[in-house]
């Protein structure tokens, strides 16, 4: 296990036809935070990860997972 964090935020956003800015507004962070999480440049805190999961009404492990 490499410890690298994968995420499916872009997929969930696409399903909801939602921009990074809209998601950022919904969970109270900046658009840059969302964009850097999506590309794997920034590992979000547990609070942000849980807020994203709650917003999409999905388990957090469905959105974030560790790379094999």
């Amino acid at each position, binding site marked *: 296990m490499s410890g690298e964090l994968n995420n499916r935020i872009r997929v969930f956003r696409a399903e909801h*036809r939602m921009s990074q800015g809209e998601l950022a507004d919904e969970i109270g*962070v900046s658009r840059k935070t969302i964009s850097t999480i999506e590309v794997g440049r920034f590992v979000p805190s547990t609070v942000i990860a849980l807020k994203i999961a709650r917003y999409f009404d999905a388990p957090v492990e469905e959105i974030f997972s560790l790379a094999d």
Partner: protein
Amino acid sequence: MTDKKETLAQFYERLQQRVALCVMMMSVAYGFGTAQYFVPAVAGQLDTLQTIVAVAAALLVLPLTIQATLKRTRNRKACKEPEGFIAEAARKAGFGAWTATFIALVFLSAVTRRTLVDVPAETIVQMVLSVSLAAFAIAFFWLSRDVVDDEDEFADEADQ
């Protein structure tokens, strides 16, 4: 694209970027202060420059700091994005600045034993401050730089 109202998270991001810019300016100001000892012929001009840059830095950050205080007073529960990307960049830059300060102090303690013996403590302090603040600002701007794949494919749709 329509003009959207700035969210609190965006505001705090802008505030942190402005603070980093002012930190860079203060680094330059302390650099002028240091240079006064080494170039005494233009010490007067350097002193004036140091004051101008320091005042400009203060004027640059003061309005946003007042705004931030007002926002905090009005809405204590407001999100300050304490765990966002920019806050993380600032934390990492702080660690980089601490490391740079430590290295600068170790280097100067060695150098001032043999050479630069007569350099006043004030100059040494200004030198270390300059290095420390520059390290913070440079690290912050590097860590928070934009990346090429930073795109928002549904942004146009959202604006319509």
